[in-house]
């Protein structure tokens, strides 16, 4: 199970890459494996401010559908433009080309509440 040490995580199986007050968000390798083949990523919150824990989008796999929760409060600046035509990138490269949204944090202090790789590994029992 791939859990890069430099990223932050949530119990909802999202990863967060912090770059100052900007964050990139995606779902973890574990999450993509559990969901199976992803066929559609629906995110219609670009330009919106979304609170921590609120739903910012939905990911549709062949067998199942799952909501995406904001790990941190912020404004959704951009969605990964490649996912519209290649949603399978989330399966192939969850921490790279399969990123989902770029946000501007509204409260940087929330970062302290995120999980590190070791804690996340414990949660998934890896």
């Amino acid at each position, binding site marked *: 199970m791939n859990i890069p040490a430099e990223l932050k995580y949530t119990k909802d199986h999202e990863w967060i890459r912090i770059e100052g007050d900007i964050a990139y968000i995606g779902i973890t390798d574990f999450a993509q494996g559990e969901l*199976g*083949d992803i*066929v*559609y990523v*629906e995110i219609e919150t670009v330009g919106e401010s979304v609170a921590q824990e609120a739903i910012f989008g*939905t990911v*549709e796999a*062949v*067998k199942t559908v799952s909501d995406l929760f904001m790990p941190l409060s912020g404004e959704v600046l951009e969605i990964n433009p490649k996912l519209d035509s290649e949603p399978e990138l989330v*399966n192939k490269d969850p921490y790279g080309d399969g990123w989902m949204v770029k946000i501007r944090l509204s409260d940087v202090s929330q970062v302290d509440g995120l999980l590190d790789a070791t804690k996340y590994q414990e949660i998934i029992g890896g």
Partner: protein
Amino acid sequence: MTTTDTLLKHTALTDLHTALGAKMVPFAGYLMPVQYEGINIEHDLVRNRVGVFDVSHMGEFILKGPDALDLIQRVTSNDASKLSPGKAQYSCFPNETGGIVDDLIVYSLEDGHWMLVVNASNIEKDWNWIQKFNTKNVEMINISDRTSLLAVQGPNALAVIQKLTDVKLVEIPYYNFTKGKVAGCSNVLISNTGYTGAGGFELYFDNEHAITIWNALMEAGKEFDIKPAGLGCRDTLRLEMGFCLYGNDIDDETSPLEAGLGWITKFTKEFTNSAALKVQKEVGAQRKLVGFELIDKGIPRHGYELIDADGNTIGVVTSGTQSPTLQKAIGMGYVTSAHAVEGTEIFVKIRDKAIKASVLKTPFLKK
């Protein structure tokens, strides 16, 4: 292993699937492989080459004796008197209130000797249902637990199995079968059936042969890159063909006529609820099972509401997926008869949005 897993039944191949790294899920009381590498990969494998499904969870009943045919005729909708030994037919058990107890395949093994193949989730329900009408004490044997079933499906399935048997497979037409030796194992029922629309055979045999036959298929299929296929792609494959799945598209509340199963509902004989179904056929069903493809983006799922352009409810989605072959979202659902015409614009309610769709004739995958 969790407590739940230990309560689940295993097939003769469960340990093998686990060792192969399959994702195992509870299904109809069994621990079954839903996927090995991924649903889309396995789907393409079956459509284009050949894959092997362990579907040993399916139920098999043997019915024997001079009155067996009468009992089968009484409880099923299709006309089993048309079958001669070596032939099979798709059928269903209608209930007494307009719905369907289960769908099944009836095999005519020899004169007065039949096999009924039913859904795993309904084994007990079906058994009790048939017994209810078994007034002449037809001998019934439930061989489900000792019978394995492998579905070898795909355009190369025939070539693979042919390497393992002397039976001339090209001489077995669709929905016909024969018994013979496969990979040295006797008494294998080789049936030209499947649930994928990809062509191929289903092999029924005693559990003791399961590992031998599985390994022989994998060895013989190497040149075609044969691989195991899970129940996940079995669902996407059947949906591309518009085949009904019991519990999704048909159930205790849906009539065979509404479900488009008029072709297996034969009024040449009397059967459970046949009088009422005959009236429904003459009057016309109020709702019909249709196929549709999404025009706007989204994935339809079982239970989602179907609405018209004004937002009125017109029906419900029974199955839906992103079709791996067609690369578009497809589904089936019941709609009022007025909306059942090909080309009708309908909408699927997905997370409170109306997603446009168009009614289509199934199969979605045209030959």
